[in-house]
């Protein structure tokens, strides 16, 4: 098992772990804030995963500096990086909305416990 493999498993493994941790928080924590944190952790894990698939052995950043025009072969895939940028921003937007909703919910229900906020059901 060479280093590439290790890095790969490390990156993927970490991201999977993050996804699971985030899901755990979403599924078990009662506080709305913690659930949002959980969602953010899931997002983080997925972003890591996304970055991870762009990795190549001994890669460099996909930025051309003068004289590095021939380094194309060693450059990592820039697409996941662009995608992750978008994904992060979107995740940020969603989190902001979620937090504002939490504020509204707290204003309305005076609690942050998700199982006490179920006026709408069935």
């Amino acid at each position, binding site marked *: 098992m060479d280093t590439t493999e290790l890095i790969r498993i490390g990156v993927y493994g970490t991201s999977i772990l993050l996804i699971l941790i985030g*899901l755990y928080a*979403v*599924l*078990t924590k*009662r506080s709305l804030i913690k*659930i949002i944190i959980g969602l953010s952790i899931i997002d983080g894990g997925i972003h890591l995963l996304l970055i991870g698939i762009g990795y190549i052995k001994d890669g460099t950043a996909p930025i051309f500096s003068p004289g590095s025009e021939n380094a194309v072969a060693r450059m990592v895939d820039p697409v996941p990086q662009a995608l992750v940028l978008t994904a992060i921003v979107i995740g940020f937007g969603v989190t902001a909305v979620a937090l504002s909703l939490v504020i509204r919910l707290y204003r309305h229900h005076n609690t942050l416990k*998700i*199982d006490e*906020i*179920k*006026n*709408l*059901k*069935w």
Partner: protein
Amino acid sequence: METILTIFIIFIAGATGTYFLGKLSGILRSVIFITTLLVTSWLFFTAVSPDVIIEFEIMGILMSWGLTPLAYVFAIIVFGLAIIIGIYAIKAMEGQRSLNFFFANFLLSVMAMFGILISNDLISFFIFWEIMSWSSYFMVVLNHKDVQRSGITYIIFCVIGAYAMMMAIMIIYSYSGSVMIGDFISNFHAFSLGMKWLLPILLLIGFASKAALMPLHVWAPGAYSNSPMSYTALFSGALSKMGVYGMVIVMIMIVQQIPDGYWIKEVIAWLGGITSAIGTLWAIKQDDAKRMLAYSSVAQLGYIIVGVAIGTPLAMMSGLFLAVMHGIFKSTLFMVVGAIERQTGTSNFTEVTGLIRKMPWTFLAALMSIIALAGIPPLGGFIGKWMLYESLMGSNHYLLIIVIFFSSTAAFLYCYKFLFGFFLGQEEKEWSHVKEAPAMMVVPMIIMAILTFVLGVFPGLILKPINDGMQFLGYVSTDNRFWEMSTIFNDWGNQVVMEPIVYTIFAIFLFFLIFLTLKGYKNTRYVTTKDISSSGEIPREDENLTFITGFMQPFFRAVAPVMKRQIDKYYTSFGKGLEALFDFTRRIYTGNGQTYALYFVIFVILLLMFRDSLF
């Protein structure tokens, strides 16, 4: 333009006009309403010929409209009843709610029935069938009475039937690529054996639901009794016949082609017999005239279905003849109830009595119709009953005939209850103010009563079109063995000749009536019903001697075991159970966002685990 299209356009225009212009003035509404009915009927009877066929395409499906001789029989019922009931309705509905809607919807119903009859393909048949369903539904709930129960029951059975039919139609379409009734019939042999059984059964469920056949009859009492009587007359008289019409086609053309399809006929016939028996028993028990007539309709349709299902030429004829007769006398009876309800404000036997002298013409109509209903000669009902019995004997239905006979004998009980409850018995002071219904209502009823008589003497008037219709379907040979203008024959060649019989009956009746009247004419006088020898005591004026509560109690003590089981209750508890179940299952949506997230994860895992079988 094609006459059929013209008729549709007039109907739609009439309905629209009735609804919108009716807001301006009531007279205008009535005029438009009646004009529409008259013009369409006139067009129909004069200008529609069976040869003209309109074909067009919708969504790639070829459809066609045209009148068949069989449909002509039913069209006679529809248009005839529509005009007479329409005239009646104008006065009868006076002062009731949503009149514009009522009359517009009435026209829509008639149009839908006409549409059913001229449909040569199953899709347009179904479309008109559904239009009929919802327009009649709105009539059922129009009175704002018992809406959520009887209305919903009605619509449930409507859609059960309609969907069964729809399923069959779609299977037919996808298997044979055509929805023409004719094509279906001629291609039927190409279906697989399973389909050969499934399709007729589905279609029959559809038709039986409208014809109120036994397990599907529970909607009828509520629906019939809750719609305005002016509509119920059409509902029971014409609308339910559409189910019969469908059954006739299926029975004649389809079931014949099924290997061992005999059993379908037997089962339907028996269901019809049981329907008539149960309907009769429940009719006797009712204290409300509307419900009684509703159950009675169920029972009468049972006879008709028996006739149709037995399916020998004579039986089919009897079924169709009974259908016509039932259309006439049951509509009259519903009109009578409508008149009584309008004049007295109630339709309950236990409340109103002794109207015979207040409403003599209404009584006459009721009497004639009841005699026809009971099948007593010389009125038209007898002809149908006679043919039915003869055909049952001719086709070796030993037990079924007994069931039919039982219910038609038991029918005397409610027939008598109807007449006695409303018209006879003590003339209480409470009802002394009651007047005869307006002429606009009485005349249609009397016309109908006369019709029952005419058809009793000259059944050939209506047997001719029936015969034509059946000949068109290739069902009877051209020699009319079963009927002449005033004579009917059975399978064995025995006959009943109506004309001399009727003359004799009238001679005897008149002779004795004159005898009774003339003998001591001067001294005989009318005394009130209080002036009786009630076991030697003279009752006081305010003493209520009316006997109507628990009217047929001894009879019910005898048949108690049969009455204990009520199919409505099973349906009700089934429905309640279903709703409770669904009330439970919808708790899946707990309202907790976290639970939904959990579902999310579980769903992912399930998909991942069963990916091989699902993809």
